[in-house]
């Protein structure tokens, strides 16, 4: 914390300085409004842009994983593909089923996108770069995040399609189940930081011992918390292998099966924004937010680090999506309640043990053994419950 202001170079603070400079021209009465606009507008621009980039990245990445080229026709290397997609979805007919609940049908994608955008308010994108430094920032994040469920439900119910209803049911069951491990795995960080403010959490991690940073992921409970958080985040954002609500081979597109044109694109946008937000939260909580990974790299502006980490997590999402088959509903629930939940509870306990033991090697070993042991036991139980095994086969004589 002490060195943060000193180390903050001009390049690092350029956006903050520009904002202050612009604010100088705004009359006093309009200052709060102007400040809000100047903070919000960049976020509203940057993240949809990131969404556009990610769609290309995802399709190209998946393509390469599958030994294809991926989109490479629109623009140079296909970078204009999102534009083409956007134009396409804007010009397509907006179909509303005759028996649909028109108002709810219209509101669902809007609510989804609004809720997805709202959570960015508390994410520190760089040093001194956050829209609202709330005392209960983490809580705000989860609270707004839970509104997504409502949007999904509205979409699935209002479409009046059996497939969309099935999708909505699946989505809600899944989101409620995974919200608990998501929140509980974040609790360890809140315990360690002693604050619910995202800004404080990041600044706590932006210090170094030698060249090594104090990220929470570098503790046994932090690592486990990070893994749990990422798994839960995958489920929350309906990404493979937890993409049951929209499982295209089973219920086709799930809750947004009856959407077309731009509303469909809004669902897409909302979903990706949700994925970015949860990834950004994981970065904030466990990966040091905008902090550089080594003390000698602090000269690189903080927001660059943030986006580098975000892109890395997005790549991981794409990679997983390109590899894994989808789980089944009951297996998904089993995993949530029989593995994720107990594991995150034990993880909180471990973080407590860590808190009350004297710093040093012993503490490290004890907590690591506790975490790894529980993980092993729980996974064995899960495996035994399902009775799955690699089989050997006999041959006819």
């Amino acid at each position: 914390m002490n060195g943060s202001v000193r180390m903050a170079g001009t390049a690092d603070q350029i956006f903050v300085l520009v904002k202050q400079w612009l604010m100088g021209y705004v009359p006093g009465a309009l200052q709060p409004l102007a400040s809000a606009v100047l903070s919000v507008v960049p976020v509203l621009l940057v993240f949809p842009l990131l969404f556009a980039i990610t769609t290309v990245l995802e399709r190209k990445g998946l393509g390469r994983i599958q030994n294809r080229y991926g989109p490479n026709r629109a623009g140079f290397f296909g970078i204009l593909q999102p534009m083409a997609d956007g134009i396409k979805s804007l010009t397509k007919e907006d179909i509303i089923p005759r028996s649909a609940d028109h108002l709810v049908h219209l509101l669902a994608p809007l609510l989804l996108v609004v809720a997805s955008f709202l959570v960015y308010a508390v994410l520190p994108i760089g040093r001194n770069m956050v829209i609202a430094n709330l005392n209960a920032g983490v809580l705000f994040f989860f609270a707004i995040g839970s509104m997504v469920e409502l949007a999904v439900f509205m979409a699935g119910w209002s479409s009046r399609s059996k497939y969309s209803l099935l999708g909505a049911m699946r989505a809600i069951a899944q989101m409620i189940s995974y919200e608990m491990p998501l929140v509980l795995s974040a609790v360890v960080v809140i315990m360690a930081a002693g604050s619910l403010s995202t800004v404080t959490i990041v600044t706590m991690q932006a210090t170094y011992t030698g060249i090594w940073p104090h990220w929470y992921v570098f503790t046994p409970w932090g690592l486990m918390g990070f893994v749990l958080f990422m798994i839960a985040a995958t489920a929350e954002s309906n990404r493979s292998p937890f993409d049951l609500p929209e499982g295209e081979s089973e219920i086709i597109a799930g809750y947004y099966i009856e959407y077309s044109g731009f509303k469909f694109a809004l669902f897409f946008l909302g979903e990706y924004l949700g994925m970015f937000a949860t990834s950004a939260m994981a970065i904030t909580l466990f990966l040091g937010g905008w902090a550089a990974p080594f003390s000698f790299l602090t000269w690189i502006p903080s927001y660059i680090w943030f986006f580098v980490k975000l892109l890395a997590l997005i790549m991981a999402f794409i990679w997983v999506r390109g590899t894994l088959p989808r789980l089944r509903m009951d297996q998904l629930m089993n995993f949530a309640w029989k593995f994720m939940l107990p594991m995150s509870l034990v993880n909180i306990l471990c973080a407590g043990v860590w808190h009350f033991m004297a710093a040093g090697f012993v503490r490290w070993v004890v907590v690591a053994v506790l975490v790894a042991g529980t993980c092993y036991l729980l996974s064995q139980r899960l495996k035994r419950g399902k009775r799955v095994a690699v089989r050997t086969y006999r041959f006819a004589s």
Partner: protein
Amino acid sequence: MLGEGILKGLTETARNFFGSYVDDERLTTVQYPEERLEQIEATRDFPFLVYDGEDWEKGMRCVSCQICEKECPPKCISIEKSKDKKPDATGKAQFYPAKFDIDISVCMSCQICVEVCPFDAIKMDVVYELSTEDRFGGLLLNKEQLSKSNEYYNKIHPTEAGAVDAALAAEREKARQAAAAKAAEAKPAATAVVGAAAVERDGTK
């Protein structure tokens, strides 16, 4: 340990991801309009009529025997036999198709017409960019559209065409000799006999 198989799978996809940048074996996509696959010699899609020489009407090998029309499984060939006879490439008088239509929207590229043709007159083409906006007329090819030169045939199926040419040349030589012998035997030589010799040659080669 839970997740072991998943990790294995992840390494495999990662290997493929990077492999697709370095290994041509992995990235087999051909970017179609710019790149094209090399023509495989045996490829077939729709039939065409072979003619010898320069003029398609004069050199058409088809003698309108209508075997292909009968044998075609989906019945996509329609032939009208001519009333008169015209000299073919070798100068013998033959019937010729007054109308020869193939509906390639019906054709299933089975090559049976080629197999049963005793005159090597119908062969399989390799063109594949045949899309048209005219659904009915555009895919109904007439005699003129179907006619392609023997040189073209030699170009697309060199091995097969070479064998056909050699067989045809040998046959024509034999026919010519027979005709000469007959001519020596009896002055008033009938020109129409020659065609029958070719008909006897079976389609099973």
